[in-house]
């Protein structure tokens, strides 16, 4: 396992145990699927199928490792806009996920309540506080409200002990936002079961981490909030999974929030509209990216004789098939009816909005 620059999390081991060979192979399959889907989505943009996409090339280990450490029956993930790998790992409907990139619906068409994956979030750092509020809700659910046991809100499982954990995903750029400070302070004060999962990918569009994060590490800030933190090699999927499981177990036990900082590298552009050549060289990318996270994991699996070349060939072929299926779904996605602009503004609409909707209908239906 890679050397950890910073690790103040008291919990050293979880009862998750070592992964079985089947689990290790599953992990690789997910990584391969995510890689293929990500590179495919960039191609879809070039083909004109989708107007834009935010690639996560190079962050597969960080995202799949994190997602694999989540209990999707009781934890809740709060993503921003580059967490496709987490979404995939959690089993989010990927056509529904990609619908946001096809400009069908901002939040995506997947079900955030059923999948425990909050709507696609375009505001950098915008959802970090939501994770804190949601997590504090899990604390309150576990306590007595008004002298009687509170309703459980539908996400807790009676057969499991411990709290549901909110996982806030943010990057080095988002860490500059005041909301991230407020979220960490609130979480620490409330002792909320939150994991702040930072993907430090070296770049916020064109601005490198050294111009973004004073001191160079978001995890280092955790000490100021009396929060434990783990900085982890974000390109080592097993290390990320281990750190995530330890952090989640800590939060689940009611011991409060944790920061996990996965040090990784955004190998691609910020988005399909970005041109990294204006702010970094190919040489920079080669050095910064290091060894590909997938090939690193392949080396481990081969060394441990958990997988062989035939397995990888089959897994990669399956990934292509899966990406093709998702592409078919994305192609088939049609526009939502314009009336939905009005339908979801409120739970209970207003006369004013109703009148605007009627006017829109009257003046649009003839075209």
């Amino acid at each position: 396992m890679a050397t950890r620059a910073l690790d103040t999390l008291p919990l050293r081991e979880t009862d998750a145990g070592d992964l079985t060979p089947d689990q290790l192979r599953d992990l690789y399959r997910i990584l391969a699927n995510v890689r293929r889907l990500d590179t495919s989505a960039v191609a879809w943009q070039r083909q004109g199928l989708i107007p834009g996409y935010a690639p996560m090339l190079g962050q597969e280990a960080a995202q799949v490792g994190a997602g694999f450490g989540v209990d999707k029956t009781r934890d809740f993930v709060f993503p921003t806009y580059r967490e496709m790998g987490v979404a995939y790992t959690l089993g989010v409907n990927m056509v529904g996920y990609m619908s946001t990139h096809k400009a069908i619906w901002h939040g995506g068409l997947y079900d955030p309540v059923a999948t425990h994956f909050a709507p696609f979030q375009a505001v950098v750092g915008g959802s970090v506080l939501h994770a804190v509020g949601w997590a504090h809700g899990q604390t309150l659910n576990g306590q007595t409200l008004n002298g009687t046991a509170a309703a459980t809100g539908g996400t807790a499982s009676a057969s499991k002990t411990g709290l549901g954990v909110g996982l806030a995903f943010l990057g080095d750029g988002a860490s500059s936002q005041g909301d991230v400070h407020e979220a960490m302070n609130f979480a620490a004060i409330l002792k909320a079961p939150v994991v702040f999962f930072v993907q430090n990918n070296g770049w916020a569009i064109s601005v490198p981490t050294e111009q973004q994060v004073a001191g160079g590490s978001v995890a280092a800030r955790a000490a100021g909030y009396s929060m434990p933190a783990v900085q982890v090699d974000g390109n080592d999927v097993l290390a990320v999974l281990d750190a995530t499981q330890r952090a989640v177990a800590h939060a689940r036990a009611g011991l409060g929030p944790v920061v996990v900082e996965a040090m990784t590298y955004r190998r691609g552009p910020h988005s399909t509209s970005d041109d990294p050549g204006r702010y970094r060289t190919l040489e920079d990318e080669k050095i910064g990216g290091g060894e590909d996270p997938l090939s690193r994991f392949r080396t481990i699996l081969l060394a441990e004789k958990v997988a062989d070349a035939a397995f990888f060939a089959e897994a990669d072929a399956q990934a292509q098939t899966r990406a093709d299926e998702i592409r078919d779904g994305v192609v088939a996605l049609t526009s939502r009816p314009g009336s939905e602009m009005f339908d979801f503004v409120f739970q209970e609409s207003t006369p004013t909005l109703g009148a605007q909707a009627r006017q829109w209908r009257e003046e649009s239906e003839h075209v």
Partner: protein
Amino acid sequence: MSDVLERIQETPLLQLSMQQAINRALGEILEADDRALIFGEDVGVLGGVFRVTDGLQQRFGANRVFDTPLAESGILGTAIGLAMAGFHPIPEVQFDGFAYPAVNQIITQLARMNYRSRGTLPMPVTLRVPSFGGIRAPEHHGESLESLFAHVPGLKVVSPANPQQAYHLLKHAASMPDPVIFMEPKARYWNKAGVDLTENSASLEGAVIARPGTHATLIAWGGMVSRCLQVAELAAEDGIELEVLDLRWLKPIDEAQLAASVSRTRRAIVVHEGPRTIGLGAEVAALVSQSCFDTLRAPVERVTGFDVPYPSGDLEDEYIPNIDRILFGVQRVLEYRRG
């Protein structure tokens, strides 16, 4: 000036200040709904800087009523997450101007989560904001944010004018499945009036006629309603019968009541504390011109704050529409003659 109309309320109504009425409503909300939570700066042990949450933490415990760190964006963002977890947050932002640090969470998140999630993550959040001026407070303690909030799709905005309304509208707002900005006219916190606890919920939608009249309609909300009632009282001495329409809901605006009142009186003066340009009065004037163009006898008059930063306490009375300025506005619409 005394509040003549409010004082002549008949017993056996409960005599409550707005602060007491809101406190009572909050207690009843917490009692009836075990998912309701109150939090914000100093709302716990202290009971709020205006004592609006006085005694609630003692009654309901620190899980239901809790102090937060001093960070408004944090308060709103936490409220959103709690709503996602199935709670009914009733956060407080201590003063109007303190809502500015929370505007990002209010606009980009609170107002849009229901939309973004296609209705799967409703936001039953009632944000209480002690609002408007009139108490000689420091900077950013006397502002009128209704135009800002009413402009944002996904928010509902309401402001009570008296204790009766405050009690019922707050309970109504807290029962709604959508985010409501509840603007409490802080200058009216301590004025007592009768409160009928039994008012039925049908009367909580839309505007109300606070005083019927025939010659012109004064349109107001929050703290300006009582001032318009004073104006109407004075005008009546000169034989001018002014109708006072209390909008209450600033989003959505009760367009039907507004049109009905001005159709009857044929003249309208809208009164608000906030700056004039793009103030809510502009929206009211547009709605009135749309619905009453043929019957209007004069252009809609606006008596408002000025396009200046909210001034220091010493100049507050020069800024907030006072009785004289409202009467001048009334005079202008009454004396208007088509060129």
